[in-house]
């Protein structure tokens, strides 16, 4: 469903150019869930944004559903590929009601029976009709993220790009949102590309994972290898150990990878 080959993304010019993504390649089959993990600055979000055509790639090829992603993609691509962002406070228009937030994409794409769709979609993400005419500030963080998911799914996309969708939420709410995403993927046969700094979240949600560091993929592993701790690259191993909690000896032995 998603095929990325030799992707390069850079910002700036000349000596000050930052190579945010360097020679990244991976494939996500239809209906699969693929994770990109790494620390800040590893290029995971930039890679995701390049697939969404939000940043222009400097080199390489990105295909979604067998077609190369254009620099300015058409409406059909936008309908097929939708995104959920990290910050449920920043990603919803503060002066639009939930109804208007969900109505806008339907109008742009000329969908019929908008009222019926909005009602159904809200029910599907676990929000009752009472939420329909509320403003984002009248919702909790978890409820807002449900609205953001509803906004992405109301166009019936086939690919969902998720950028740290639960990082701003409490763990109990995170569990609810992860379950909801898992259920929706199963029900609709969605393909997920899931970016997170949290290895446990990615292990929970994805069948396959790429570990990124300084713009490159240093290791690709499946969920079983991740669960067993069977990683080969020293950086990936260090990241895995560090995510298991505080360890005095490990803190002393941490290595900086350049």
């Amino acid at each position: 469903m998603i095929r990325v080959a030799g992707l390069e993304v850079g910002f700036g010019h000349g000596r000050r150019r930052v190579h945010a993504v360097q020679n990244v390649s991976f494939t996500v089959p239809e209906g699969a869930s693929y994770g990109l993990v790494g620390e800040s600055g590893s290029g995971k979000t930039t890679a995701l944004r390049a697939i969404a055509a939000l940043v222009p790639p400097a080199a390489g090829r990105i295909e979604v559903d067998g077609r190369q992603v254009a620099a300015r993609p058409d409406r059909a691509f936008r309908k097929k590929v939708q995104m959920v962002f990290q910050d449920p406070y920043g990603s919803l228009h503060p002066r639009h009601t939930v109804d208007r937030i969900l109505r806008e994409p339907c109008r742009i794409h000329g969908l019929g029976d908008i009222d019926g769709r909005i009602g159904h979609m809200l029910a599907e993400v676990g929000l009752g009709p009472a939420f329909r005419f509320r403003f984002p500030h009248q919702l909790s963080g978890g409820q807002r993220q449900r609205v953001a998911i509803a906004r992405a799914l109301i166009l019936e996309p086939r690919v969902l790009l998720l950028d740290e969708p639960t990082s701003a939420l409490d763990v109990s709410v995170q569990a609810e949102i992860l379950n909801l995403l898992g259920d929706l993927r199963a029900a609709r046969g969605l393909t997920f590309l899931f970016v997170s700094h949290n290895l446990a979240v990615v292990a929970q949600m994805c069948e396959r994972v790429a570990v990124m560091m300084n713009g490159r993929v240093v290791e690709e592993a499946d969920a079983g290898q991740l669960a067993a701790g069977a990683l080969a690259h020293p950086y990936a191993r260090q990241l895995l150990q560090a995510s298991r909690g505080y360890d005095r000896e490990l803190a002393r032995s941490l290595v900086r990878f350049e």
Partner: protein
Amino acid sequence: MRLEVEKLSVRFPTPTGVVEAVRGVSFAMGAEKLGIVGESGSGKSTLGRAILRLIAPPGEVRAERLAFDGTDLLAADRRTLRRIRGGRIAMVLQDPKFSLNPVMTVGRQIEEAVRVHGRTGRREARERALAMLEAVRIRDPARVYGAWPHELSGGMGQRAMIAIMLAAGPELLIADEPTSALDVTVQMQVLAILDDLVAERGMGLVLISHDLDLVASFCDRVLVMYAGRVVESLPAGELHQATHPYTRGLLACLPDIARPRRRLPVLERDPAWATEELP
């Protein structure tokens, strides 16, 4: 160093009624690492601020006892509080972007803390500032001394913040989510610095966090807060054998790398947790 808190409550009057952010919290601590965990809105940060009397009116702090080394913090006047705040009890907040002064170099900010609390000269303050930067494992202290906060990464900024707070040699450090904005490997290094300070200087540390695994692996003792109250208090090593259904529920809903499940258990909140009698 001994901090004693008995039946501490914090109330905020609002147009729609009084909000009781902290309700009857009691604990005592010495030179140890005490973790306070809970979800957003549980009152853990408000508790940390209340200890330093940082709750502004119309918020009210009440307690049967709030004492630091015998000094009654509730009865203390402003001069006494000024000497204690930043001097004997220091506080580190979550985000260095907002807690460092953006128009002052890092070095000057550390010097300010040294000079306010230590009555030292400029030269001595400079030396102490450089020594502090070294103590928090900054590789090139001279460069960071002259740097502006916007020139530092998150991890560096948080180390600089800790350097400021440690400059006066506090006996108690209240750290409110000090590493939540940092990458896991940087988080580990910052925690190791705090760990050493507790071990070497005999400093007390209150670590406020939402991260149960982190607190379980780092602290000596943990208080679990729910709806403004401490619902469970136990040694950190035994957190995974917690008995309160809230603590158990929080632990259960954490995803586990070694054990991905089809669905995560969801926390079912019992209204009784907010009111039940506690042991």
